């Protein structure tokens, strides 16, 4: 084959941009020609991938497909709706070389929302895009640009409003305990209980401690954690009182941070905050159930407008695959 998967992906991206420009400019013949090229490239990409890995034959163009501009392409394969259990999937484990083609390739096949779902399922608490990306890089061997997450929540909201509960889960908002408005920059999973998605004034700390515990537990299950995972744990450990520093208590045999120490220290602090935080969250969750409709319970009350033109552009790129995936199920 002439081109590698990565080169093909670059070419596909460039072609899609070309198609979009041509369509927007009203240049039909050019758009048609570019679409033909695009389909060739996509087929070549499928073929390249199939030969690269026979077991991960399920291809998925849903994450980046453009059903709006590429309506004629009915051949786009649909990825089976597999729910991934994060701890069960371990590209960084002994079977796979961390960071090498196989792990990366497989990760890239997942739509962005599923990557976010993987990371959030590991953390088990609402998290900011930056942490989600770090966790995904540390445990699923793939980093993604956080900028793409800015529009994800809005796309999910749009999808939910057009066909409520059509998907098994939605990436939704965490709600502030006072106004039940979407909490700035935090993403959550719709299947979590409402209490977990409420952010009171102690919740940021509680959520941090819970995510520190979950990251530590996840690291324990990995025989050889990648450097990114260890870096994440040591950053967390440095900010949990009693889990780092004095006497090297937290360091295991290889001079590494002992996850158990982090877990114990985080749990100790968690006990101090848990009751007050739980009270706030339960109260706000009750209010949310009483006062808000389904969509508001997931995406928050109050009006949020896009803040910049950049967001709008993202919206186009990520918005369409969202709808397509919803329709495909």
């Amino acid at each position, binding site marked *: 084959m002439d081109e590698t998967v990565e080169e093909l992906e670059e070419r596909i991206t460039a072609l899609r941009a070309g198609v979009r420009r041509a369509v927007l400019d009203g240049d039909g013949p050019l758009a048609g020609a570019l679409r033909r090229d695009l389909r060739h490239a996509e087929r070549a990409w499928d073929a390249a991938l199939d030969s690269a890995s026979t077991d991960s034959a399920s291809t998925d163009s849903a994450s980046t497909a453009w059903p709006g501009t590429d309506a004629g392409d009915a051949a786009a394969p649909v990825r089976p709706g597999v729910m991934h259990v994060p701890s069960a999937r371990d590209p960084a484990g002994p079977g796979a070389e961390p960071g090498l083609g196989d792990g990366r390739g497989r990760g890239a096949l997942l739509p962005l929302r599923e990557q976010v779902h993987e990371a959030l399922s590991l953390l088990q608490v609402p998290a*900011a895009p*930056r*942490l989600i990306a770090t966790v995904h890089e540390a445990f699923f061997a793939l980093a993604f640009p956080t900028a793409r997450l800015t529009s994800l929540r809005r796309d999910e909201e749009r999808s939910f409003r057009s066909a409520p509960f059509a998907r098994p889960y939605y990436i939704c908002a965490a709600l*502030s305990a006072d*106004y039940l*408005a*979407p*909490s*700035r920059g935090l993403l959550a999973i719709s299947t979590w209980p409402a209490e977990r998605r409420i952010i009171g*004034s*102690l*919740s*940021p*700390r*509680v*959520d*941090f401690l819970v*995510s520190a515990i979950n990251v530590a537990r996840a690291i324990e299950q990995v025989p050889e954690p990648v450097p990114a995972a260890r870096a994440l744990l040591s950053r*967390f450990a*440095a*900010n949990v*009182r009693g889990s780092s520093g004095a006497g090297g208590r937290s360091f295991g045999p290889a001079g590494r941070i002992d996850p158990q120490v982090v877990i114990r220290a985080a749990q100790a*602090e968690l006990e*101090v*905050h848990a009751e*007050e935080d739980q009270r706030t969250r339960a109260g706000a969750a009750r209010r949310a159930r009483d006062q808000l409709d389904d969509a508001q319970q997931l995406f*928050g*009350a*109050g*009006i*949020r407008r896009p803040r910049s033109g950049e967001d709008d552009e993202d919206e186009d790129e990520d918005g369409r695959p969202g709808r397509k995936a919803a329709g495909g199920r």
Partner: protein
Amino acid sequence: MDGGFTDIEARLARLRGGQLPETYDARKIAALAGNPGCRRRSVLDAAAVEKRRVASYIGFPAPFGQSPFAMARESAFQAQVKDNGAMELLALLREVLGLDLAEAHYDDLGDVAGNVNQGLRYAHTRQVLTAVPQRRGTMFDHPLLRFRVAGRHAYLQPDLVAFRHDATFHVVMVRSFPVIDGQADSSGVAAAAIQSAVFVLALRDLLAGAGLDGDAMVHHETVLVTPRDFANQPVASLLDVRKQLATVRRQVARMDRVEDIIAPLPGDLTFDLDADDKGVPRRRPGDLADAVGCVPASYSPECLGACEMCFFCREEASEHGDTGVLGKAVREDLGGIESVARALRLARGQGPGPVPPDLAEAATIVRRAARLRGEAMAGDGAVPGHGAVPGAGTVINEGTGAS
């Protein structure tokens, strides 16, 4: 009182002309506190004139305060310390303020249910912060405060305000200049100290407005968070800003007397660019430069780091041979003598007419300095009394030291 206030407002509005008023922020107050004698900056800031625009229109654009790299660096560092429930910041505050383990609350006051309207945010901040003694809270991110300067309210946003169990608030500043081996860039620290003093005063005002004892509740020690050494690891230091509080109070009192500065200026003076419908200025640049020149400035090389008008003022000061061009130290040593040429004439006893009484002391000092220099140079075989300007500065320093 009311009538006078309106007159001043009208006068300032005329000075500003058709431009949109620029907001008054902590940086402006800090810059003015650094050079309190500058009437030009006082007037331009009080009139909320967009100095950057004026400066570039009259041919002296200042690439000042605009480095996108520095701004990106600062916001990245801020985001880092406030990430994950402000985990890094909380660890630092526990260390420097001795917070209890249970004090880990974090409230984001950056918007009110998604609304970022300033008036609304200020009201929300006031409501939350004044209720803190009853309800619990530790870290308040992006509070919006209000400060009355030169007859108008300026909205100010400290990086964070921390509340401690002994019922005191501490202003927290996050800056991206590093502390290397325990030493930070002194001008950066000085600016941060002045700015946090402004925040302390604004916060005290807010609490006092709700009938609380603001002076006692807002601590004069503020927390400065900076990167340590050459890494991104944050470190917190306490800054005692009592001196800066006094400076800012004095400054603000002066600014409220901006009418005294405006009074001697021509009544039809304006810094208007006379923009047309499309925002293209129609005023002659030379004309605007003359208008700016009407208000006396007090230039010193320090202005280059703090004021958008700096290049214009520097050009003007070197044309006039102002002593300020040689630095604040020289200007102060020469007390009262405004130009270098005058100082040299006084030193050589060539002044036109007798020395005026207010310059008598300064004249004695420069003469003695010139004599000492002459003696020193005579030993080296140089010609006395014809030193270059920087040399004159050096000798005068020696002279004052000897007297």
